[in-house]
């Protein structure tokens, strides 16, 4: 039964992806009043613009343009970057792993710290740890991530000179052989420990900054969910029948409190990917966020739209994974 449900989700995914492509298509083909003029640049002659219009099929009916666009995107053809003069696909494969590495560790860290912090602060309400967790969850949502990045960079790089500024590895270290593109993973697999530690050294600050906002959301959600569950009748029953406090918390309350937060984990991915734009920019981290910001400053439309689409697809896929995970975790789901 669960397989059928997964297949159904996959079927819906096709529609979501179509929706995404319509939005990015509309943005890149319909919104600029004259995309050909954009591509050609302000100094191009009329005939040059006309040539580009013909070359990019901009004289075709909109429906045909859309079909062409989707055909290209399915084959991962996002066109050529106007600035790097290389296919956007090549740029993507170069910069995406850096963002994924950043996002992955921020996601893990915010979950691994946020969940226990939320649970403990709900169980030990008004204790010092609860105060810390509430401080984190209030400030984490309000602190502009780019400002936090600047401040952290100021203290740890400029003042203390303890951490490197930008880049994924020190200048004298060669990247490991590409397996996943994540330096920490690749260096571990190939046993190159000096690269592994150097990569971590460079990751610490940007990951810490990116984690903070997401940590706030997770902590707040878990704390709220846990408090609600702890007030339920069955918890009182469990306590009344003489179960130990730990047994009540870990066997009865925790699972029910955490289930709803699983669905929110997908949204976290969106938060982290958006944050990556700003964090990468401040830390000169060579990921697709910084790539996109550079593209924006040079009005490189193909690059901007490709980044947007790739990020949205990652977001949608992660949400699908979370949905499927939820199916396995929650026995109450109706399979009908």
């Amino acid at each position: 039964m669960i397989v059928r449900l997964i297949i159904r989700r996959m079927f819906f995914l096709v529609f979501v992806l179509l929706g995404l492509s319509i939005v990015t298509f509309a943005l890149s083909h319909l919104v600029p009043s004259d995309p050909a003029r954009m591509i050609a640049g302000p100094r191009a002659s009329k005939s040059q613009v006309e040539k580009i219009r013909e070359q990019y099929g901009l004289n075709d009916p909109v429906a045909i343009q859309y079909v062409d666009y989707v055909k290209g995107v399915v084959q991962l053809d996002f066109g050529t970057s106007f600035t790097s003069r290389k296919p956007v696909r090549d740029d993507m494969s170069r910069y995406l792993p850096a963002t994924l590495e950043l996002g992955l560790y921020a996601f893990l860290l915010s979950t691994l710290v946020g969940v226990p912090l939320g649970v403990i602060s709900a169980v030990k309400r008004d204790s010092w740890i609860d105060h810390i967790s509430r401080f984190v969850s209030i400030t984490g949502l309000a602190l502009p991530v780019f400002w936090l990045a600047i401040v952290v960079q100021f203290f740890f790089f400029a003042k203390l000179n303890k951490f490197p500024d930008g880049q994924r590895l020190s200048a004298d270290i060669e990247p490991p052989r590409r397996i996943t593109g994540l330096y920490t993973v690749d260096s571990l697999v190939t046993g190159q420990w000096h690269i592994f530690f150097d990569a971590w050294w460079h990751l610490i600050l940007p990951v810490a900054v990116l984690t903070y906002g997401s940590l706030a959301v997770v902590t707040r959600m878990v704390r709220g969910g846990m408090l609600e569950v702890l007030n339920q009748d069955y918890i009182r029953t469990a306590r009344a029948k003489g179960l130990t406090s730990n047994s009540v918390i870990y066997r009865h309350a925790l699972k029910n409190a955490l289930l709803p937060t699983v669905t929110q984990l997908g949204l976290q991915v969106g938060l982290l990917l958006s944050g990556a734009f700003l964090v990468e920019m401040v830390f000169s981290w060579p990921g697709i966020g910084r790539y996109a910001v550079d593209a924006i400053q040079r009005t490189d439309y193909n690059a901007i739209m490709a980044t947007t689409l790739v990020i949205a697809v990652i977001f949608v896929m992660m949400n699908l994974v979370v949905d499927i995970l939820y199916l396995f975790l929650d026995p109450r789901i109706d399979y009908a």
Partner: protein
Amino acid sequence: MTEQASTQEPIASQNDATLANGGAAPVRMGASGSQTRRNLHRFLVKNRLNLAGLVIVSLFFILAIFGSVLAPHSAYQQDIKHAKLLPPSTEHWMGTDELGRDVMSRIMVGARYSLQVAAVVLTFSVLFGTLVGAVAGFFGGLVDEILMRFTDMFLAFPALVLAIAIAATLGQNLTNTMIALATVFWPWYARLVRGQVLAVRERDYVDAGRSIGMSNTRLMFKHILPNCISVVIIQMTLDVGYAVLATSSLSFIGLGAQPPTPEWGTMMAAARNYFRDAWWYTTFPGIALTLTVLAFNLLGDGLQDALDPRSSRR
């Protein structure tokens, strides 16, 4: 822009009552004077965070409206020769920037841009989102399906990323920032209001209204929407903070307000280049922005607790 609110049960259900007074829906718009005062006392005095939020929000509004009058110096007047990057002093409380402009005055004047964007974005988002959500929820069926799938298209993107893409396509100025942010904010209201309407339309007083021959429009505006309003207000309060934050983020990237506009994000983008020598230049706009967002969040949370006692946010 959290999804939490949409998953909660509608607040209107607390106001469940029958059609007692001539078919008026049980909306408690104004309680009696003493009760209002008691509620206000509980809201502000019992919970100091609410009070802090309210004070900062009021300050923000005052700055946004009267900032240019209250500012001790001009926000634009340059003095590169004598006043370049001066640290905080009695003359310039928050120091000066690379062109010798007073940072505090620029922050004060800059509040206006944040409020302006937030106001326009949220007005549009609430009106349009409510319209879409209400129509979808009220009519259901195919209309609901089409409208909500349309809404989902926008929700499939991480909000800030879509806003960046839209603003980048339209061009770099504050108006386009507003359009970009409105495009990513409204779908949340559509979803929120649809959920509310779905629950409220099943209530007895709506059935009663229908049975005495009320038109759909009248039912919607007099009886259904007023009972959805409190969740929208809570969400709006929280979203002012997020809109201010998003505006500054876009400006920081170079998309929103352009120099010499004293928008906070634009200021920080410039200040970033001087952060080693002039800590005050980045620090104060950052604090202003953080406090503003924080205050709206606190106030939104407080309102949520007050208006929706069953909420899990504590």
